């Protein structure tokens, strides 16, 4: 309703863009907020950046009130659709389109565009690396460590578990192992793997972990137990890349956030200029497997800028 009126005119008011993320306490979230604000300002936008500290009780009202004060575009960084239902309602009511980066694993009508990474692709890459390293998945015992509260990790750990079973492998412990709190992810994964190895000596072939921090705990447990299972993670943090280079971790996955962000910024510019929204509201982008071979060339996700 309101959005289009000012969208074409670059003369009077600068277009207003609300950029918010709940994950500003993570390196990627922090990078994204800064990057978007900087790029947007360069493009002549009036960017209001809202940081949520994982506290939706605080963030959602802030975003909604910004929406209430008028805006042209809402840009969601890394916040799962489930947690921002009230923001989606508010922006729909105000007729403001919401663009998003990695904010849900499925198409959702709440978004004009959400670009995320290809979760199945990530699983294919990591399980492929595991399979190559241990000679196929059939008959192998693989532990999958996930964290259900995180939508992306939840989806990919589910896919990985399914694929392992489909390929004839066994899930260590009979199910996906859950880390309860991301803050203690590394310690929890360490204990999970160490205790499993103790309880089932010589059984574990590989550990597939949904994110690098916990993967590093698994790596440590395996090296301390003197076991020979391989570990993969996801995110390409500098620590994980170093572990891959050192050979203690088999692989991780780089997700191309800078280029994804550029794509979305373009789509927003396009919308602000012409009022046209992207044809598809959901896009999945391919990722890069990081192994010892290419590790040196990857920019770590916590050092994007």
């Amino acid at each position, binding site marked *: 309703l309101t959005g289009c009126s000012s969208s074409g005119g670059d003369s009077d008011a600068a277009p207003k863009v609300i950029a918010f993320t709940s994950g*500003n*306490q993570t390196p990627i979230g922090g990078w994204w907020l800064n990057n978007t604000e900087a790029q947007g300002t360069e493009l002549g936008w009036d960017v209001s950046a*809202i*940081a949520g*500290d994982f*506290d*939706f*009780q*605080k963030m*959602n*009202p*802030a975003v909604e*009130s910004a929406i*209430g*004060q008028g805006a042209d575009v809402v840009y969601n960084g890394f916040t*799962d*659709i*489930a*947690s*921002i*239902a*009230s923001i*989606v*309602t*508010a922006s729909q009511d105000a007729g403001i389109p919401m663009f998003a980066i990695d904010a849900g694993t499925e198409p959702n009508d709440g978004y004009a565009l959400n670009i995320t990474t290809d979760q199945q692709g990530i699983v294919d890459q990591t399980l492929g690396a595991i399979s190559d390293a241990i000679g196929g998945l059939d008959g192998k015992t693989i532990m999958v460590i996930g*964290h*259900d*509260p995180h*939508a992306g990790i*939840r989806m990919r750990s589910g896919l990985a578990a399914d694929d392992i079973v489909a390929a004839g492998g066994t899930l260590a412990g009979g199910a996906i192992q*859950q880390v*309860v709190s991301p803050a203690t992810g590394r310690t929890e994964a360490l204990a999970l793997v160490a205790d499993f190895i103790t309880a089932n000596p010589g059984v574990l072939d590989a550990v597939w972990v949904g994110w690098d921090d916990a993967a590093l705990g698994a790596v440590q447990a395996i090296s301390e137990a003197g076991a020979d299972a391989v570990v993969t993670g996801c995110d390409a943090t500098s620590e994980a890349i170093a572990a891959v280079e050192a050979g203690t971790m088999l692989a991780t996955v780089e997700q191309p956030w800078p280029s994804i962000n550029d794509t979305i910024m373009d789509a927003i510019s396009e919308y602000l200029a012409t009022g046209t929204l992207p044809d598809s509201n959901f896009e999945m982008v391919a990722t890069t497997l990081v192994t010892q071979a290419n590790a040196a060339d990857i920019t770590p996700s916590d050092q994007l800028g």
Partner: protein
Amino acid sequence: MTTTDNNKAPTTTSIVVGHASNAGRWMMQGGTIVALVALVLFFFLMRPDVFLTFVNIKNILYQVSILAIIAGAQTVVMVVGDFDLSVGATSALAGATAGAAMLGGMPIPAAIVLALVVGLLIGLLNGVLVAYLNLSAFIATLAMMTSVIGVAFLVTQGTTLFNFPAEFNELGQGKLFEIPLPVYLAIVISVILWFVLRYTTLGRQWHAVGGSVEVSRLSGVNVRRARLLAFTLAGFVSAIGGVLLAARLGSASAVQGEDNMMFSVAAVFLGMTILRSGAANLVGTMIGVAIIGVLSNGLNILGVNAYIQQVLTGAIIIAAVTLSSLKHRER
């Protein structure tokens, strides 16, 4: 012995009535109120165009409404001289329960009632542990918190539940005269709690028990029942807060509103400083809630880095409580 002896009192009486006058008695301008006024003034001077506008005040109220409810629950327990560290977990479980029930097809009112019953039962269990089995409230509610979060994870299966019926979300997101519903609800619940604490026999008993368990018992107060009911009410009110939070966010997760526990305790503590007796009290708690709300909103408006915000929040809570304690220090 003649009654003239009583005349020695008057010389001091007049001086003291100053403090003890009806209004002044339970509202001494403690450091907490000073801190609130100072914060409001500071943010107003920094951003006179924004801070005290209708929209921003509405924002602050909206942002603290659920904390206010949970801090109200915490106040009840702290009046009795205990703690409830499980209020945050209970509210999360209540929200998750309502959410899961609705997604499972239960009608909205039934789902809400179910959630409130869950909260009530957790409170009851806390009460039994503390009042009848004599566990320390600290350890009992800490362990309860752990278990309740675990149950909430099971209820949500570790995910964030969403896609609730619009009518449910309306409870948390709807507006009346421009003001969001949770604000009204927080006010209504606070007033009810204030009334219960101040004017009911149960409220009186809570205050007495908080003053001295032994004296209360020897004065005929059923101490165990009083403590049990305080915890039960706290569980119930926390559950209201949790249901409202789920409606407000349109989603529910096991760790939702995690910091409400910590902030509720902080708010009650801030509020305790305004009474000379140092007892928990609802008016004080709401001042504490306001400080927390103003601080977070104001720092956001000034665009202060999130980490620095966190450092400042702790520092300002300490400063406010210290200011009040200086007054009482000389002994």
